[in-house]
């Protein structure tokens, strides 16, 4: 049964992978533009407005610039690892999008096409696994640079991501107790008829959100980069497109974590009143995809908005927040959720 994979299925999945990859790259590209524009607006400036109208071609110009920059590999760097670092970071950033359900099913050519590359029954575990692989991209790159600032950035990034992954996992367990499933598709479908899980898990969501900021290395937790203290943190020695990969992958990570948060807590591709709408299933699916992306954009806006508001945490504050506040809070949330579930079942 398992070996009966038809050529059509392979083709279908390949097209879907290409589209999703393209969309994530495109959105990551324009997040850099949004980042610069919003930063400018928040600081009462205008932002990039020279390349194309409203500077709409700015990401292309930035990309082109990075592409044609001189490629510098430090003499004492480990060449193989130095190149491997950004490669791992970029690949892991792109890999997570595979299990996210971007929409329900489309009926084309008499076939049901699921808008999810792989409905793995352990979707969440897969995402966690891949995301924690991403830290190797940072570690390998920082270590291979043979530079003390890179190394310091690396150490910070590694310890930060490890500490916040704990709280993130704990906050997630409370959610999984309610859903009873690890498959992202199931979780979204459950929210289709009931309420969104943010209602059941407000504290869990808050912890998840804070941890997502830490996982993406975004301000207020951007200690790994930390421009003002560590030059550029782990990618101090990088130039040209390898630097581009690091910067770009960060935006992809931001996009994916927005997508994960929307999927887990904000109903994924569901939107209010979708069952009272009398349209064809295909239209409904497309509307759902649009709703999903609108929610993602709101999250992306939030990521950027926070970056230009909150200053960076100090290292000890970061660790205190992670270990002494978020983890106990997550455990408390877990206990309360469990107790309530037991109480309501009896």
């Amino acid at each position: 049964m398992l070996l009966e994979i038809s050529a059509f299925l392979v083709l279908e999945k390949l097209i879907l992978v290409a589209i999703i990859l393209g969309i994530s790259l495109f959105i990551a590209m324009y997040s850099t533009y949004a980042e610069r524009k919003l930063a400018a607006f928040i600081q009462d400036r205008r932002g990039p407005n020279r390349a194309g109208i409203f500077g709409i071609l700015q990401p292309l110009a930035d990309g082109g610039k990075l592409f044609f920059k001189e490629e510098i590999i430090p003499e004492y760097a480990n060449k193989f690892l130095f190149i491997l670092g950004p490669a791992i970071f970029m690949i892991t950033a792109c890999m997570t999008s595979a299990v996210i359900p971007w929409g329900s099913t489309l009926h084309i050519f008499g076939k049901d096409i699921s808008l999810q590359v792989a409905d793995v029954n352990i979707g969440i575990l897969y995402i966690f696994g891949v995301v924690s692989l991403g830290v190797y991209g940072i570690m390998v790159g920082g270590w291979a640079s043979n530079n003390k600032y890179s190394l310091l950035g690396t150490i910070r990034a590694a310890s930060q991501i490890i500490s916040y992954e704990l709280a993130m996992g704990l906050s997630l367990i409370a959610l999984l107790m309610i859903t009873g499933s690890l498959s992202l598709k199931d979780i979204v479908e459950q929210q289709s008829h009931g309420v969104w899980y943010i209602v059941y898990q407000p504290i869990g969501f808050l912890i998840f959100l804070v941890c997502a900021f830490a996982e993406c290395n975004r301000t207020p937790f951007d200690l790994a980069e930390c421009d003002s203290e560590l030059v550029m943190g782990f990618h101090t020695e990088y130039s040209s497109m390898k630097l581009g990969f690091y910067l770009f992958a960060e935006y992809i990570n931001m996009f994916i974590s927005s997508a994960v948060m929307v999927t887990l807590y904000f109903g994924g591709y569901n939107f209010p009143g979708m069952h009272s709408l009398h349209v064809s299933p295909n239209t409904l699916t497309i509307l759902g995809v649009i709703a999903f992306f609108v929610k993602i954009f709101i999250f992306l806006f939030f990521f950027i908005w926070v970056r230009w508001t909150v200053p960076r945490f100090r290292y000890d504050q970061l660790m205190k927040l992670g270990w002494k506040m978020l983890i106990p809070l997550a455990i408390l949330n877990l206990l309360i959720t469990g107790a309530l579930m037991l109480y309501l079942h009896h």
Partner: protein
Amino acid sequence: MESLTNRSKPVDRRPMNLWEKIYLPAVIKGLGITLKHLFKKKATYNFPEQTRPFSPVFRGLHILNRDEEGRERCTACGLCAVACPAEAITMEAAERKPGEEHLYREEKYAARYEINMLRCIFCGFCEETCPKDAIYLTETFAPANYQRKGFIYGKEDLLIPFPEKENQPVTEKP
């Protein structure tokens, strides 16, 4: 110690209370502030298309002035160079020859007169100190240059052009 302006605020070093320790209220307040700024009027001027209006007392590049008959006013007294806090002015004096009365107003004139615009702080002391009303600060500023020596402005850059016609009034800054 008594502070100079009485505007300094003492730093609050009390340990944070619980409300402050959960950070979120402060973060939300900050988000509100930045959201307000999102819609504020932008302070930027789109430079090449849009220039910023200068204040009436703006002090820019210098000019060396001529008198009503088009003769150079500067007598190379060197007072501007002495007054200059940045030591940006250098000059060499020369004596007026007979027959040059239509060129220089006084018997002594500046054969070489240079201002280093990289040193100059545009304080305007040279303008204030000049007894002959010869030097003025205008409303333009020094354009960018590729080399340092491009910022040393000689007499040919500073002196306002010789009036072509007799009846054309010499522009003089009020």
